[in-house]
């Protein structure tokens, strides 16, 4: 392979358990966002837009959806002869039992051979968890100008938020002298975004060294502090643009809803810095004669006969006559019947909601099984699920699997209750 100046390693193996049922059958980077996209499309598109054409995607948790989505990299023009995208799953080695990726740095350690084969000078470490547009080439320039061994992208957060992040304490030139993971009393507000550029030979040595002591080698916990200790040059690279962590049901819902404002903060409609995704399905969307669609974004192939307000609708969704969808997110391939009422719901892909179902009414009782995940009034329906006709569902509910009316009492599911069919996958 032709030598690369910088390649990217994208950590896409995380479950994202705070997204509840949405990550039951797919890793967090594969969760849909803004209608037709998946979260991983944002870092992937940033890579190609920044001129990074060699990307290793590290998968572990539920990789099927990701594998299908990425394929050989066609959506990002990464189906190239030199470089391109490689999906890197945990694997066995001669004489070993094989092991999972036990930490962020361990995952990179286990793929040193792959990186060596690309012969990069610099390696960009990314996670597939965030929504943002960023020019990694500008960050690389910063890295080279400051003769860094490590550059860490940081966001200025409020001091109250700072104790939730890995915090960089830096001098007036943004040279880092100390790193603190989730400090109780933060000394600075520069929060790590989990985006690093390493000079490869320095990282390579650090990974091998750290593996001797930590089987679960992690960038924040082990590699960064160790390199600081050894006197390496680390700089903070300030990022001032839109950046969203969509790690919880509420933040996921809110970030989607921000996109439907008349002038959203995060602009998907500019040709500059386009976000690419798998576009294997192309029909236009259709709105029927009695349809009403307002303050919403709707993706290709949808057939809308009902009313949609303040919602994000993914590809190939059908909504029957008389249905009213409000403040909701509906993912690819869902079929919503007639006279269905949805209020603050998230419906995962290929789910069928039959006629006369109503969801999202009633009181705000938190979910009884997982009150820390479902507690803001949003009802979440999993993928490939069936909700039979006439069911009335409250707030903070979860339904997963092909349910029938026998799974409900009096055709009702009160707020905070769940119906999860075992083995539905």
């Amino acid at each position, binding site marked *: 392979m032709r030598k690369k100046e910088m390649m990217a390693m994208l950590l896409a193996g995380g479950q994202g358990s705070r997204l509840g049922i949405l990550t039951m059958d797919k890793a967090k980077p594969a969760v849909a966002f803004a209608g037709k996209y998946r979260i991983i499309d944002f870092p992937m598109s940033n890579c190609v837009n920044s001129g990074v054409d060699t990307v290793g995607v590290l998968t572990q948790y539920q990789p099927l959806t990701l594998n299908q989505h990425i394929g050989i990299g*066609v959506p990002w023009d990464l189906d190239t002869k030199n470089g391109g995208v490689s999906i890197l799953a945990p694997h066995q080695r001669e004489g070993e039992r094989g092991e999972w990726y036990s930490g962020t740095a361990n995952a990179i350690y286990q793929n040193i051979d792959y990186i060596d084969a690309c012969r990069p000078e610099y390696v960009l470490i990314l996670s597939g968890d965030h929504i943002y547009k960023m020019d990694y080439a500008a960050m690389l320039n910063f890295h080279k100008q400051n003769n860094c061994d490590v550059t860490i992208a940081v966001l200025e957060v409020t001091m109250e938020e700072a104790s939730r992040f890995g915090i960089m304490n830096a001098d007036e030139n943004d040279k880092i002298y100390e790193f603190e993971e989730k400090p109780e009393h933060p000394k600075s507000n520069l929060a790590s975004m989990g985006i690093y550029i390493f000079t490869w030979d320095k990282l390579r040595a650090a990974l091998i060294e750290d593996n001797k002591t930590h089987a679960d080698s992690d960038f924040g916990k082990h590699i960064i502090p160790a390199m600081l200790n050894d006197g390496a040059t680390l700089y903070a690279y300030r990022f001032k643009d839109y950046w969203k962590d969509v790690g919880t049901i509420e933040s996921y819902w809110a970030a989607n809803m921000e996109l439907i404002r008349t002038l959203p903060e995060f602009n*998907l409609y500019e040709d500059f810095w*386009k976000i690419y995704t798998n576009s294997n399905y192309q029909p236009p969307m*259709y*709105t029927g*004669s009695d349809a009403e669609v*307002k303050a919403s974004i709707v993706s290709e192939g949808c057939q809308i006969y009902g009313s949609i307000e303040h919602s994000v609708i993914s590809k*190939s969704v059908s909504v029957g006559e008389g249905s009213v969808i409000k403040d909701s997110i509906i993912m690819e391939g869902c079929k919503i019947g007639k006279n269905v009422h949805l209020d603050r719901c998230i419906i995962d892909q290929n789910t069928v909601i039959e006629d006369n179902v109503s969801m999202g009414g009633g009181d705000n009782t938190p979910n009884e099984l997982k009150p820390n995940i479902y507690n803001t009034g949003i009802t979440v329906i999993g993928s490939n699920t069936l909700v039979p006709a006439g069911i009335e569902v409250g707030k903070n509910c979860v339904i997963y699997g092909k349910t029938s009316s026998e799974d409900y009492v009096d055709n009702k599911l009160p707020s905070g209750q769940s119906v999860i069919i075992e083995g539905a996958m």
Partner: protein
Amino acid sequence: MKAIGIILAGGNSERLKSLCKVRAIAAMPVASSYRAIDFTLSNMSSSNIKKVAVITQFNSRSLHDHLSSAKWWDLDRKEGGLYIFTPFLSSDNSFWFRGVADSIYQNISFLKRSHEQYVIIASGDAVYKMDYNKVLEYHVAKGADITIVTKDMAGTGRDVHDFGVMTFDEDMKLTSFEEKPIEPKSTNISLGIYVISRTLLIKLLENTIPKGYYDFVKDIILRNRSHLNIYGYQFDGYWNTLNSIQAYMQTNMDFLNSDVRSILTTEPYIDTKPSDDPPAKFNTDAEVKNSLIGTGTIIDGSVKNSVLFRKVTVSEGARVNNSVIMKSSYIGKNCVIDNAIIDKEAVISDGKQIVGTADEPVVITKGQVV
């Protein structure tokens, strides 16, 4: 599939006026997301034809752009795949005027180097979904030398005077074929889709072209009618061709009908070169009824009974009715657009009225600023 495909995409039409000044008919945008040739190309691909030649001539730039990669139709193959044949033009005579048969003859090496038994020849100007395997099976079952796909246009509202009109005996064997007759003998027209064995096609072309006969219908089919078994295959599905402004408008509007739209929304899908635009955006005062909306379009105004392509902007207070608006066009505030075809990248400034009639839609040309 035991056949190779040839798509004739050289056509142009005076009757499409300014729409065709910038592109071949096969490159005409249809139904929000597609170009006309996507239909025939997808039919070939979904009929499992692995080797397809597209013969272009007139204004082929946009067509070449569209076909710049064959991967969208799964035709980027090491063996077979997509071939694009562009004619060379001599100083005194253009290739097109020598005829369709000549355009195939000029590329006869494509036929000679193939091993498949049959050839499916189809026009790239029509909009339809067809499984060519069924036509081929019929061709073999009938023991035909040539099979011509025909459609009975009674009840479709299309004037058969514009087409090749055929009659058949009770076994569907061809009894007469007249090109654009003044007094048509039937309502069965030729859809310009033919099945023929590869070796027979080579033989007929080699016997005909060097003698100075260049037309496919007149010189290949009609001249050989007495000693060849020519059969008609009746097609009952939706079919339309883009040979006039009215037909172009009608074809787009046909997709507002759910039966016709199912061509797009059911498998096998019609494939096209993707354009990764964001979802269509409907702002607070948008009102959209009975319309097709392409991706990346932003709507603040009202849109009814219309077909909007990708990345169109309809500003607040604008009213769009019964119109086709192509990619990246901008409709200003409080505009009224009625019975109009707005070509790509046009700008209609605030408050303008573009009003035509159902019979005579107004056409705004590509990039025009009103």
